């Protein structure tokens, strides 16, 4: 199978400390990867580098068969790769407007945009709170909005940073269920986590980060 993402080299140093020294990473479409590692091992940094939000000291990467210049991350790639923060930021507007943000950037016009946002709200099980201001949502609900906001854009690679951290059992279960539905035939999901509920899911491929290297 051709890898959706193929990393030949990825290096990142903070001061004297080499945080990441990844020599090989292949991510296949249709799969869910659980990226594990101790706190501070560089999981978030790795995901942010892949998403073009953090510069790497060295990055050799192919995406969907095309070479990516690590020195100047192409804006177009950001439309294929989406990163969801551990504590997602929701814009000071409605849930619908949050979900429509990326759709508007892609030139999708109303009412199609509204229809897609409504479907995403339904998908994430947010119907009951769809009129609540984002700042009044619980941690789990915020995470669901962030996932819906990402999924509606149908990214080829979805990078999710510790989505179940600090959530109660019920909310964790709902987030895990959403993540399982997110990987499709032509897209893949990487979840940085410590959560056994995600790591032990069938068909989840585990990537472990230790001393900057992946195993």
């Amino acid at each position, binding site marked *: 199978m051709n890898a959706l993402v193929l990393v030949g080299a990825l290096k990142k140093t903070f001061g004297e400390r080499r945080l990441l020294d990844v020599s090989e990473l292949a991510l296949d479409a249709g799969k869910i990867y659980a990226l594990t590692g101790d706190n501070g091992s560089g999981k978030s940094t790795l995901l942010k580098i892949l998403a073009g939000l953090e510069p790497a000291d060295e990055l050799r990467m192919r995406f969907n068969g095309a070479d990516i210049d690590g020195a100047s991350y192409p804006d177009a790639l*950001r439309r294929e790769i*989406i990163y969801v*923060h551990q504590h997602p930021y929701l*814009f000071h507007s409605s849930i619908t407007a949050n979900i429509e943000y990326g759709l508007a950037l*892609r030139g999708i016009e109303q009412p199609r945009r509204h229809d897609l946002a409504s479907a995403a709200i339904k998908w994430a099980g947010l119907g009951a709170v769809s009129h609540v201001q984002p700042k009044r949502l619980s941690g789990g609900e915020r995470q669901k909005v962030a996932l819906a906001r990402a999924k509606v854009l149908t990214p080829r690679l979805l990078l999710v940073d510790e989505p179940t951290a600090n959530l109660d059992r019920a909310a964790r279960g709902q987030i895990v269920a959403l993540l399982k539905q997110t990987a499709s035939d032509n897209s893949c999901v990487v979840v940085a986590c410590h959560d056994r509920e995600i790591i032990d899911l069938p068909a989840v491929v585990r990537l472990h980060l230790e001393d900057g290297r992946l195993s």
Partner: protein
Amino acid sequence: MELSTAIAESFRLLFSLDAKLWNIIGVSMKVSLTALLIATPPAVVLGFALATVPFRGRRACVIVLQSFLSFPTVVVGLVLYVLLARSGPFGQWGLLYTQEAMIAGQAMIAFPVLAAFTLAAVQGADRIVRETALSLGASRLRASLTTLFEVRFAVMAGVFNGFGRVISEVGCAMMVGGNIAGLTRSIPTAISLETAKGEFAQGIALGIVLIVLALGVNALLNYFQGEGGMK
């Protein structure tokens, strides 16, 4: 005049819609709001640029901007007076002792307040705001504009703060406005004059207006800070 009589008289002036008193209030509102309207767009642009565009000397610019926050308004008035006086470089415009001169002075006073609030708001915005916008496909410019939009309530707080500063300043208004009755007499300059004359009633009435305005502005400030998730 006894204090109690002066207070009673001040309320009578306020509620009888005394033309002279309300003209002073009108001049103050017109001058201050116009000054804000003029100063806000460039100040927001400058504050935003200082927060987001790295360049050599940026730190020095920020220090200068913050220093202007504590610049005495009377010095702003002095500078403007020298520029607008008959013998000054802009003397031929004949702007001294006009509302336009007061507007210019108040815009200069409000500018650093507005720019500094915008700078602080954008700098204080979590990096996650920009990262979220970028990750959802925004260009760098669009992500910056999204960040500015997200801190709009903090910027609004700056506007209210600027309004509070200019509506109550007396030094500049007195120097370049000249405190001309019916033309450039504003609330603080009128209070100063009436008190000097021993006419406390009108001074107290205008003081009440200033206090009510301060309360209103702070209520709005509080509301906007709450909306912005700051409280």
